[in-house]
């Protein structure tokens, strides 16, 4: 049919593992430490925390990979958060994340040091990198896990929600090593920072070549409203029942009094009452604050999965049958419009401080 023979193609990537396929040599867990401007993302430390437990169960080392420009301090932090070995690749070309150079270094480290499990945060960057690496190796990759464990056969059980959080499924990769997963931010707890912990910091040789630098970051425009729900200790959240943007101002007042921040359900952010950056739940952020006050939130599963691990939950809703009460430690049946201002007043009355002083 074709008049001329199509030109010879480049061989397709990711069909066969390159190099060693003696999987018995693969040992330990490698965690990718994500950073921007020399600050690591909390999810990286959360992953080290959960992986410490699994590495001990496997009797294998916990490794971290830090890439960036001038990231020696992050490598030390990784030790303090639980890593036994930290591989560091310090290179001005790695200052900002770009898929190709980052995956080159990551592939090199995986092939050289042979971890049996590789984990990353299910952030935009983590998903971008993990998808490229798993295909390149090739190996199996589980997305957006919320439960992790290892069994006696050293298999990683990565469990994740499916069908809008209506089901959970455990995914296994028996055929290849390393077994890979991305993990939802806010799901696990980091270990306490311990600067007395000992670990090795190992410099990774520079494997980058000019041909790996194919894309150029022109500019990073930081969001003006940089909302850090993940690390908030107190959250006052509103849902459909809040009814408008003005209501969130009332919630914000309570949040500020208590040293916390305001948040919302998808219904409220979709309605445009508050920015999507404040959204908690399946398609937003997962949080585990010390105190979560839910006002005008019915408690749909897609929201509950994002906040059910909060230490104390207070629910305020007009409907005593609202599902949110099932997970609430304290339930108040009533209109948030009356209850929240009353709470602000009661708080002010008992507070020893003249003004609010957020933690």
């Amino acid at each position, binding site marked *: 049919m074709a008049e001329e023979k199509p030109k010879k193609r480049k061989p397709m990537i990711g069909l066969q593992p390159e190099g060693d396929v003696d999987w018995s040599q693969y040992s330990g867990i490698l965690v990718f430490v994500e950073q921007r401007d020399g600050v690591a993302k909390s999810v990286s430390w959360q992953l080290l925390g959960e992986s410490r437990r699994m590495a001990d169960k496997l009797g294998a080392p916990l490794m971290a990979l830090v890439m960036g420009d001038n990231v020696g301090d992050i490598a030390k932090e990784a030790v303090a958060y639980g890593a036994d070995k930290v591989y560091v690749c310090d290179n001005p070309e790695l200052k900002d994340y770009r898929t190709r150079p980052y995956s080159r270094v990551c592939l090199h480290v995986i092939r050289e040091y042979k971890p049996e499990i590789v984990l990353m945060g299910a952030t935009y960057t983590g998903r971008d990198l993990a998808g490229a690496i798993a295909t390149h190796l090739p190996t199996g990759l589980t997305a957006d896990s919320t439960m992790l464990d290892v069994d006696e056969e050293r298999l990683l059980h990565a469990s994740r929600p499916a069908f809008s959080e209506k089901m959970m499924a455990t995914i296994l990769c028996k055929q290849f090593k390393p077994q890979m997963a991305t993990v939802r931010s806010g799901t696990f707890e980091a270990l306490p920072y311990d600067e007395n912990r000992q670990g090795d910091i190992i410099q990774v040789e520079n494997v980058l070549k000019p041909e790996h630098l194919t894309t150029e970051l022109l500019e990073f425009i930081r969001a003006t409203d940089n909302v850090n729900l993940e690390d908030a200790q107190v959250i006052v959240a509103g849902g459909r029942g809040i009814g408008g943007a003005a209501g969130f101002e009332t919630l914000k007042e309570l949040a500020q009094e208590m040293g916390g921040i305001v948040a919302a359900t998808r219904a409220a952010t979709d309605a445009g009452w508050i920015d999507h950056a404040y959204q908690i739940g399946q398609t937003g952020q997962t949080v585990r604050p010390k105190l979560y006050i839910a006002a005008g939130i019915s408690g749909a599963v897609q929201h509950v999965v994002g906040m059910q691990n909060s230490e104390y939950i207070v629910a305020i809703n007009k409907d005593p049958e609202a599902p949110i009460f099932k997970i609430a430690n304290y339930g*108040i049946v009533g209109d948030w419009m009356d209850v929240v201002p009353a709470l602000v007043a009661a708080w002010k009355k008992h507070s020893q401080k003249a003004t609010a002083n957020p933690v």
Partner: protein
Amino acid sequence: MHIVVCIKQVPDSREIRIDPVTNTLIRQGVPAIVNYYDLHGLEEALRLKDELGARVTVLTMGPPSADKALQQCVSMGADEGVLISDRAFAGADTLATSYVIALGIQKAEDEWGPVDLVFCGKQTIDGDTGQVGPGVACRLDLDQLTYVEKVESVDPETGAIVVHRHLEDGVERIKAKMPVLITAMSELNRPRRASLPGVLRGVRYKPIVWTTNDFEDLDRSKIGLRGSPTVVGKTWVPETKQAETVWLEGESTEAIAEELVKRLTETELPTKLGWELEV
């Protein structure tokens, strides 16, 4: 320019319910739709076609019934729709899927010329992995521009493309050289409705079907269930955490508020959070 848009026909996951007796998914009666992030990829391809001139090929892997999804894309303005369909492709995970889609893109190049741009949705609403886009880019050695919320400029002469990538803490402006693969966020655009002539073209359109026999270099050990390294172990319906709810009641709202403040001060929260309260 030749633009390939990868799409998937998915069950509308918002409509899926769990059978309370068997704890399994009820799929019956759930409408099949084009994964909506993919429609944003298609819209961007059609916008570039309108502005710069391009051939738009839509590619999907799926059962024969996925021809409806391709007809919808053609009704919106795509030039061709290709259905990669064969029982041997069934049961594929993201790794096996990216292999077949990559083969499909290579074959589309043979048929209709070199590909400059590939669009995928940022993820599907049934799988929610977001892994197939990066997988396809990796296999074809294309630069991947994921989570794109704006295509700022495309220069067909130099091949330069500038896009905005969405991140948790801001937006990146990235410059790359085509061919590249883009995964689309819903912020990218607003997908068009098909025009009346478009609808007529769509319903009459018979998608091109490629089976395993159409791919010369196909490695059968890399497709379908056999080519998929991940397997599903157990599945279960998660139980939401239950708490012993203490109901706070009182004469007035003020009294209830007082009661809550009192209860909270009795916990370890004031110590942990540095609250200075006197009750």
